[in-house]
């Protein structure tokens, strides 16, 4: 097992730990916070995977997530803040 594969494993363990917080979290904002954290960690894992397999076109997926990933968080947060009125 090389160093980068170990890093990927550690990040996977972090994702499961954050998932426990998402499932337990008393309020909906805790769950949104977990969604945000998991999305950052998934971007890291995609970059590691592209370095391990030496295929740089995998980075495009990470770029798409970096550009679009915040939209769902912002939409759900606004939805709760306006009590069901998105505009």
């Amino acid at each position, binding site marked *: 097992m090389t*160093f980068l594969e170990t*890093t990927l494993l*550690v*990040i996977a363990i*972090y994702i499961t*730990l*954050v998932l426990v*917080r998402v499932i337990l979290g*008393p*309020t909906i*904002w*805790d769950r*949104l*916070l*977990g969604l*945000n*954290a998991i999305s*950052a*960690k998934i*971007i*890291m894992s995609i*970059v*590691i995977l*592209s*370095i391990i397999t030496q295929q*740089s076109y995998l*980075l495009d997926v*990470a*770029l798409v997530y*970096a*550009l679009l*990933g*915040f939209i769902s*968080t*912002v939409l759900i*947060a*606004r939805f*709760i*803040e306006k009590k069901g009125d998105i505009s």
Partner: protein
Amino acid sequence: MIDLLAYLLITIALIFMALGVVGLFRFKDFYSRILISAKIETVGFLTIMIGFVILSGFSYAAMKILLITLMVMITNPLSTHAIARSAFLSGYAINQGSRP
């Protein structure tokens, strides 16, 4: 030699992120959780990305990773701000008192 530096940076970032995960479980109040964990993410993300750039040398992949880092640095505060603002405007209580 230069690889060792990258490995060191990645290890430091992993320790940072571990502390962020600990902070998620240690704090009892939502506002302190959002202050600690989402922001430790920033430091960990920056460090681990610099490690990857050093590891992949001077190539197009390194520039793409830099581009990804720039985009995340622009969009990450937006979502954190949206969550905190949503909780605050909905009237969620702020723990002002000093607790042991």
